[in-house]
Each structure stands twice: as structure tokens, then as C-alpha cells.
């Protein structure tokens, strides 16, 4: 426990806290590169090289003119980047000291909202009607996917009997790191499938990408962002992507050391990308109805199975 009286400066832990967001961003950008390559191959194109997103970010940060819309705009962008970093600090990775023992699932589910909210704040003061429309859609979608996602998480919590993510991860690894028989995807499969569908909405991939919706509403939240601000948006998207995937793999796929979680995240992301590439975009009302119908009902059934068995 953190005790200010005999607070020890733990250099290793501090370094690991510093390292995690940087690692998450780098991996998230790599995932985006993989996604662009994958979608190109499916379209029968060659596609950009894997390091394309890194070049994009460097270019965006080297732009000579950057348009700001006041201090809320600046702060919102920073808050957006801080949210997923905080979330990553609370996710347990074997052998990596971070803040996971000091927070539980409730904290993580709250930190999940900080990042998108920061970006929404920046987009809302950005004076672009498309941006405001994107924010409205993003908030609506948030209501849509949080219900099934929370219910799926609740099923895990009911099964595990604890809110502590460290214990949930340890419980799944009790049969061995590579043995999936104790993973919650196997123990509460119905709820896990519901959570998986909701994850698509959490990540904002098609068919749930109404908040960005390129060429429909400009690019939604991103419409007014350019130069460094768009660069920050990219870093946020990358970090947020990795944090969400890591959370899901720790919750349902057993977690493990950082490299293993990264591999599991990649596996989840490739599935999500394939769905993204093959689906079109739903209308906001259709997407909302879909999220509150199938995954929610599935998650409820999963929860019932856990509670009454």
C-alpha cells in the first residue's frame, strides 16, 4: 500500500510506469499499420508499409502551423492522452510493477471514459458542426456499448467473486499460463461473446464507427484536428486501442506477462479488423438498437447462468 510516511521511491516501478504508455502507443501504432496492410490485402492492393503510422505521426508533429481553439481544446487533447495511460497503469501484467494492486475493475471502467471524454471536449469546442455531431454520436454509442460490456464484466466478477483484476488474472492462470481451461472465455462463454461484440463498439470499429464516420460527417470528432492536434489524436487512438485490447485479454483471455498480453491483443485486433473491413457502417439508430438487443440479451443470459448455477 502507498504509505506517505515511509514512501519508498521505487525506481524500477517508476520506470515501468513511464515505459507502459510509450510501449502501448508504439504497439498501438504498429497495430494500425497491420490493420492498413490487412485491409489493403483484402482490397487486393499492396498497401502501405507497416511503419506507415509512425511516419504519419512524425509528419503531423512536424507541421509548421497548428490551429488551436483555446485552452479547453489544448487541455482536452492532453486529457485524452492521459486517460488510456492511466487505464494501462491499472491493468496487471505479470512481473511488471504498476498500480494494478491499488485499483480494481471499478477504477478501470472509470478511467476508460476519461480519454474519449477529453477528445470529445476538444472536439466540442472545435467550432466545427461535424465535430459536435461526432461527439453526440460518440456519447450515444458509449451508452450503447457500455451496457452489454458492463454486464459481461459483471458475469466475470460474479464468477470470480472479486473485483480485483490482479486476482481475476491470477485465477485464470491457476491452471498454467498456456492452459485456456480456466480462462473466463471458457468459463462464462455466453457473456464473453457478448463482451466481445461490445468490444467492437468500445474500439469504434465498423459497424460501430459512427463517431468518426469518414466522408459521412467529415471525420466526425477528428474534423477540426490538424497538425500536432491530429498527431495527439493518433497517439490517443493507438494507446486507447492497446489499453482496451489489453483489458479485454486480461479479463477474458487469461492475461499474463506483457508480451503475451500483446500477442493476445494482436489476435483480438486481427479479428476485429476482419469484421471492420468486411462490414459497412450502420446508422447510429441501427447500431444502438443492435448493441442493446443481441449483446445485452446474451450478456444477461450469461449473467443468469453464472448466478443460478
Amino acid at each position: 500500500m502507498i504509505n506517505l510516511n515511509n514512501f519508498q521511491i521505487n525506481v524500477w516501478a517508476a520506470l515501468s510506469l513511464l515505459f507502459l504508455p510509450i510501449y502501448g502507443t508504439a504497439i498501438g501504432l504498429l497495430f494500425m499499420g497491420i490493420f492498413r496492410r490487412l485491409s489493403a490485402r483484402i482490397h487486393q492492393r499492396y498497401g502501405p508499409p507497416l511503419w506507415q503510422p509512425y511516419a504519419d505521426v512524425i509528419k503531423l508533429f512536424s507541421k509548421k502551423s497548428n490551429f488551436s481553439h483555446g485552452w479547453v481544446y489544448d487541455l482536452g487533447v492532453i486529457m485524452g492522452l492521459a486517460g488510456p495511460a492511466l487505464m494501462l497503469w491499472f491493468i496487471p501484467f505479470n512481473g511488471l510493477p504498476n498500480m494494478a494492486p491499488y485499483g480494481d475493475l471499478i477504477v478501470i471502467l472509470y478511467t476508460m471514459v476519461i480519454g474519449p471524454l477529453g477528445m470529445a471536449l476538444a472536439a466540442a469546442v472545435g467550432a466545427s458542426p461535424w465535430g459536435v455531431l461526432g461527439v453526440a454520436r460518440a456519447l450515444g454509442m458509449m451508452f450503447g456499448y457500455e451496457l452489454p460490456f458492463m454486464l459481461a464484466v459483471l458475469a466475470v466478477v460474479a464468477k470470480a467473486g472479486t473485483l480485483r483484476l490482479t486476482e481475476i488474472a491470477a485465477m485464470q492462470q491457476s491452471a498454467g499460463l498456456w492452459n485456456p481451461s480456466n480462462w473466463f472465455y471458457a468459463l462464462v462463454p455466453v457473456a464473453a461473446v457478448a463482451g466481445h461484440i461490445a468490444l467492437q463498439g468500445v474500439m469504434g470499429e465498423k459497424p460501430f464507427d459512427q463517431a468518426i464516420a469518414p466522408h459521412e460527417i467529415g471525420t466526425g470528432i477528428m474534423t477540426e484536428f490538424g497538425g500536432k492536434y491530429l498527431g495527439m489524436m493518433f497517439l490517443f487512438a493507438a494507446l486507447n486501442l492497446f489499453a482496451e485490447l489489453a483489458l479485454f485479454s486480461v479479463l477474458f483471455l487469461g492475461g499474463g506477462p506483457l508480451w503475451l498480453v500483446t500477442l493476445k491483443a494482436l489476435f483480438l485486433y486481427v479479428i476485429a479488423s476482419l469484421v471492420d473491413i468486411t462490414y459497412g457502417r450502420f446508422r447510429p439508430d441501427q447500431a444502438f438498437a443492435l448493441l442493446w438487443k443481441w449483446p445485452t440479451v446474451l450478456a444477461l443470459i450469461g449473467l443468469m447462468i453464472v448466478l443460478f448455477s
Partner: protein
Amino acid sequence: MEWARLIDKVTSKSLWMMMYCTGCGAIEMPPTVTSRWDVERFGIMPMATPRQADIFLITGYLTKKTLKRVIYVYEQMPEPKYVIAHGSCPIDGGIYYDSYNTINRLDLFIPVDLYIQGCMPRAEAVMDALLKLREMVEKGEANAWQKYHENFEYYDKNQKALFGENWRAVMTL
């Protein structure tokens, strides 16, 4: 200086373009960006809004009405920015040279980096221009955007001569 070279090199690998598609040339854009020619393998990607774009591709003739929008969009793009004029219409008027409501030369109003001649240029020509622009950016030669600062009086004078003295105040988008 070395640092700037490095940045130029990276920038040339990632150019996002915004296409202004009111002219006939719009029809050449789909083959350029989709699986036929696939410019994305060079890091060139179509973007939806001016704030995100580096390249401004003007595909064909500009009327007095659309030129105003083009100037506004150009000014909204973050620097460095590059303009490609596609087709003969923005170069010298093309077949609309004597029309009552199109302009004949784009570079009187905003600085242009590259011209693609032809009526209309095929997707191969667009690819060629994009690769040429990429080379220019890498060498630090695509500097037309600086002219808009240095010679703003010139561009402003031409804009005002065409649209009237206080067109910016009068215009609503």
C-alpha cells in the same frame, strides 16, 4: 539543417491529400486510390477535411463560385501544404477558356506546386505527379506555400479584382 532534411524525408513518405472534385477529373480519383493504382503504398491517402490534408488536388475547372471555396479551404490547411492543379482547365482555361464564369489560371489566386497537363489526365499521370511531388518534398523543393506569405499582396489583388473589394466579409459558406 540535418534534422530538417530528416523531417522532409519522413514527410515525403506520408502525404495526405484532399481532392477538390467539382471538375471532370474527379472520375480519375477512384482508380488512383483503389486497387488499380493504389497510391496508399506510397503513404498517400485521401483525407476528408482540409485541416488533415497536406496535398490539395484541384481536379479541373473552377468557377468563380467554387474558387472562393478553394481559397478558403487552402487557407485552412496547415502548412506546409502543396497544391496540384490537375488538367488543362486550371492551367490556362482548357476548353472553357472563353467561358463567362470560369477562371483561366489558378496560380493567379493561390500558389501551385505542380501541374498535370491533359484533358483529362489519366490516373497514371496523377500517380506520376504524386510521385514527383513526393520527390520534391523529399528534396525540400515544394515550397510554393511560402509564396502565399511572401507575395500575399499579389494574390490578394487578383482575388479582389475578381470577387470585389470585400468579398471575404460578404461571403457566407
